């Protein structure tokens, strides 16, 4: 495993290189998607994801297991995405009650609905946005999300409830307007 007992030297370096490549292939979708769904900027998301993996590479010998590395990647990707969003000045934060309304109703599973939902999620405040992404992209429960984001479980649940309520209201309003 990562903390291999192999001797120092070229053989150990090669083994670490193989392990790193496996970790990249296994987790690149997760890391990139967290950044992409959060930032909604493909180039920025890819750059952030690359930086996260390079940071992993620098600390590769410190991980106890593949699961440890996966948890670390998820946590670092989440925090870096939030930090990156805060540094971006051209995309102002929108309050939950100010999130844009969908322009038209869409059928379930509709790609338009999916895109609309992604935009709605991307307009949420940073913490709430990352909570929603970790819940529905990564299928984490509130306790796991709380550990990743270093926030109380009740705060996670509050973000989830408020975000879902707002998303539901926005979509229902759009459907109601379409039916009128």
């Amino acid at each position, binding site marked *: 495993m990562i903390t291999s007992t192999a*001797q*120092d030297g070229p053989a150990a*370096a090669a083994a670490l*290189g193989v392990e*790193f*490549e496996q970790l*990249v*292939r296994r987790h*690149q*979708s*997760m890391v*990139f*998607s967290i950044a*992409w*769904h959060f930032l909604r900027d493909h180039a920025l998301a*890819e750059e952030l*994801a*690359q930086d996260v*993996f*390079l940071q992993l*590479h*620098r*600390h*590769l*010998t*410190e991980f106890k297991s593949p699961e440890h590395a996966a948890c670390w990647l998820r946590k670092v990707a989440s925090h870096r995405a939030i930090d990156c969003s805060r540094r971006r000045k051209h995309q102002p934060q929108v309050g939950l009650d100010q999130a844009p309304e969908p322009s038209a109703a869409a059928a*379930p*599973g509709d790609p338009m*609905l*999916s*895109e609309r*939902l*992604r935009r709605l*999620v991307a307009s949420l405040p940073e913490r709430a946005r990352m909570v*929603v*992404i970790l819940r*529905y*992209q990564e*299928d984490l429960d509130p306790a796991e999300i709380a550990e990743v984001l270093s926030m109380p479980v009740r705060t996670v649940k509050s973000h989830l409830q408020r975000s*879902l309520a707002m*998303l*539901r209201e926005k*979509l229902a309003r759009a459907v109601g307007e379409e039916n009128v």
Partner: protein
Amino acid sequence: MSRLEDELKYALRRTDPGPEFTARVLSRAAAAPPARKPWWQALSAAFRPAMVRWATVGVAASVLFGVGGLEYHRQQQVRAEGEAAKQQLVLALRIAGSKLHMAQQKVMQAGER
């Protein structure tokens, strides 16, 4: 899970960035300087099988030399104590001999009167 949550799961499903992303990451990692081991890992690296054998030999030799040195010192101490005791005995015998000689002379003087 509600319909909205199902839609969210679908909308927020993972997207693979593609093989070019992988290649770029590996290329940048290969160009990066090698990771420095934390001090505790460098220390634990000392406990490798071959080095453990040599370290064991060194420790055993140190113990043997230490024990041998202690024993030599103890022997030296016993010898010194014995020598001191011998000197004291010789002195006591001289004193006793001197007093005996004095007593003998007095007896002889008393006999001549």
